[in-house]
Structure formats: structure tokens, C-alpha cells
């Protein structure tokens, strides 16, 4: 049986290729935070306390646009709801752990660490130290995210506003969808959600993300019924 540290470092090395897009994402977040007028400390604190790129950018975007905390937090919840899907697949491999381990690993369960460690769990389901893989991949990602945010905060003070780097926000989210560009049903949901957001952008309380996501999910629900009937 492989030692705990060996599994930890395998997790760290397995996640490495996925870290390449994380670095510019973190830098962009730091730069935008400063450009939108948040203090360096508050911008960094988001990366430490929330540690989720999409949640952090939605929060920055809405709060700087004048949304209330309630709307900003509801929008963050909507963005986070994708996490529930992972639970269905990853929990069976972490079931035997005590609450202490589960608490720590929860802080380290990101899209990327989930992806690589789930692959490892599937292949090593009888290894009782398998959770060290997620510890390794998660800590590595956490560390890179902190460093790149700090770098962005530093650069945010230097980079001129004229570069229009805030355009990197929609581009970053666009890049998270590239895997689904070739699926027509997904593209349909994207268009429904996006157009709803544009049409209803000026509704009160900046609730457009909540509304558009809800309508997008309703479209998904209808598609899922259709999908089942086809099979």
C-alpha cells in the first residue's frame, strides 16, 4: 500500500495541468476587485474565506453594481448549486471518514480537485488512504488560488483602467462553458438564460441573475423530460 505522503503528492501532481487556467482567473479576480474599488484586504479575504472563483466574481459584480446582500447571497447560492451534483458521486468514497476529515476536505473540494481526485478514487476504491489524494490536490489548488489573487491585487494597482480588463469577466465565464458548446441542448439553455438576463437586467434589486438562472433551469427541466421520453 502506498504511503500517505505519496498519495498526497500524487494528488498535487495530478491537479497540476488543471492549474494553468486557475492562475489567470485568480489574477483577473484580484485586478477586478481593486478596479471596482474594493480594498486589497477585502479582495484577498474573499479568496481566503469563499475560495470559489465563480462565487467571488458574482459577489464583486453584484455588490459593486449596488445589489443588496440578500440578492448577492442568493445569486451566490444559485452559482453554488452545481456543487450538489458532485456529492452524489464523491461521497461514497469519503463515507468512512470522521467529521474532522470531512470538514477539512469540504473546504478543499473545488471543481478541479473534484475532477482529478474522483478519477483517483474510482481506480483506488480499496485504498484506505485515498482521501490524501483530495487533500493533496485541494491544498495545491488552494495555494495557487491565494498566490494568484495576491498577484492580481498587486497588479490591479498598476494596470491602467483603459485596458478594459473587466471584459475578462464574461470571457472567463465563457471559457468555463467551452465543453458544452457542441451540445445543442446546452446551447439552448445558455441562450434562454442569457437573453432573459439582458431583457430583465433592469428589474429591481439586481435580481436578473436569479431570474435568468431560474428560467434557464426551467428550460433544462423541460429538456430533461423530453430527453427521457426520447429514450
Amino acid at each position, binding site marked *: 500500500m502506498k504511503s500517505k505522503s505519496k498519495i498526497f503528492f500524487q494528488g498535487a501532481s495530478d491537479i497540476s495541468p488543471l492549474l494553468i487556467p486557475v492562475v489567470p482567473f485568480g489574477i483577473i479576480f484580484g485586478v477586478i476587485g481593486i478596479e471596482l474599488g474594493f480594498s486589497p484586504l477585502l479582495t484577498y479575504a474573499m479568496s481566503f474565506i469563499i475560495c470559489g472563483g465563480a462565487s467571488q466574481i*458574482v459577489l464583486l459584480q453584484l455588490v459593486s453594481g449596488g445589489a443588496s446582500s440578500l440578492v448577492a447571497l442568493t445569486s451566490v447560492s444559485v452559482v453554488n448549486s452545481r456543487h450538489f451534483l458532485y456529492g*452524489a458521486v464523491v*461521497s461514497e468514497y469519503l463515507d468512512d471518514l470522521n467529521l474532522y476529515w470531512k470538514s477539512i476536505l469540504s473546504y478543499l473540494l473545488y471543481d478541479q480537485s473534484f475532477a482529478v481526485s474522483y478519477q483517483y478514487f474510482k481506480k483506488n476504491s480499496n485504498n484506505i488512504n485515498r482521501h490524501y489524494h483530495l487533500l493533496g490536490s485541494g491544498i495545491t489548488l488552494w495555494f495557487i488560488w491565494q498566490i494568484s489573487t495576491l498577484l492580481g491585487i498587486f497588479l490591479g494597482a498598476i494596470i491602467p483602467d483603459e485596458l478594459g480588463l473587466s471584459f475578462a469577466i464574461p470571457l472567463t465565464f465563457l471559457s468555463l462553458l467551452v465543453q458544452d458548446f457542441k451540445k445543442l441542448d446546452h446551447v439552448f439553455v*445558455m441562450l434562454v*438564460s442569457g437573453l432573459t438576463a439582458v431583457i430583465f437586467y433592469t428589474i429591481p434589486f439586481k435580481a436578473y441573475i436569479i431570474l435568468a438562472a431560474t428560467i434557464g433551469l426551467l428550460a433544462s427541466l423541460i429538456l430533461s423530460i423530453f430527453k427521457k421520453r426520447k429514450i
Partner: protein
Amino acid sequence: MWSTVFLAGLITYFTRFSMIAFVKKDMLSEKTRIVLSYVPSAVFPAIIFPLVFLDVNETLEIVGNSKIIAAIVAILFGFFSRNVLITIFSGLISYWVLIFLLKY
């Protein structure tokens, strides 16, 4: 603002924790899983579209909007490469070319 950040952190942590601690394999029905798999496609465009199509005055800007052209370039590069970095930088570079070189 600090309390909002802490609450957002709690919400994010809770969704991660609950999936390890409470969500079990057979808890989510097949249909729920299918719908959840659409969450990114249902949520992210709600953030993307207004930032691309609306101008600073929050009104629709189609003609002379360099962000739309740059976003289309990014979508094309993303479609063919399926690469996150290429998508971001093709969009950003074409945006800079449009606004600085072509003064579009």
C-alpha cells in the same frame, strides 16, 4: 460588506460540506442529476450576456459594440480548441485589437 463576504463563504462552504456529509449516492434522482448538469449553462450566461451586450448606461448596445465581436471570436476559438486559456485570451486580444488598433 465584510458580513456579506463571511456569509458568502459560509454558503459556499456549506454546499461543499453538505455534498460530502449528507448527499448520498441514491439521494438524487436521475432527473435531478440531469437538471443539475445544466446548472453552469443556466447560470453563467446570466452573468456573461449583460456584460457583453449592455453599455455603461445599462442600455442595449449592438452596433459598434467591440465586446460582441470579441466574444464571438472567443466562442469560435473555444468551440474548436475546447481550451479555457485560448478562449479567454483570443477574446481579450481581439478586444484590444478592436479598441486600440482599429478604434472600433
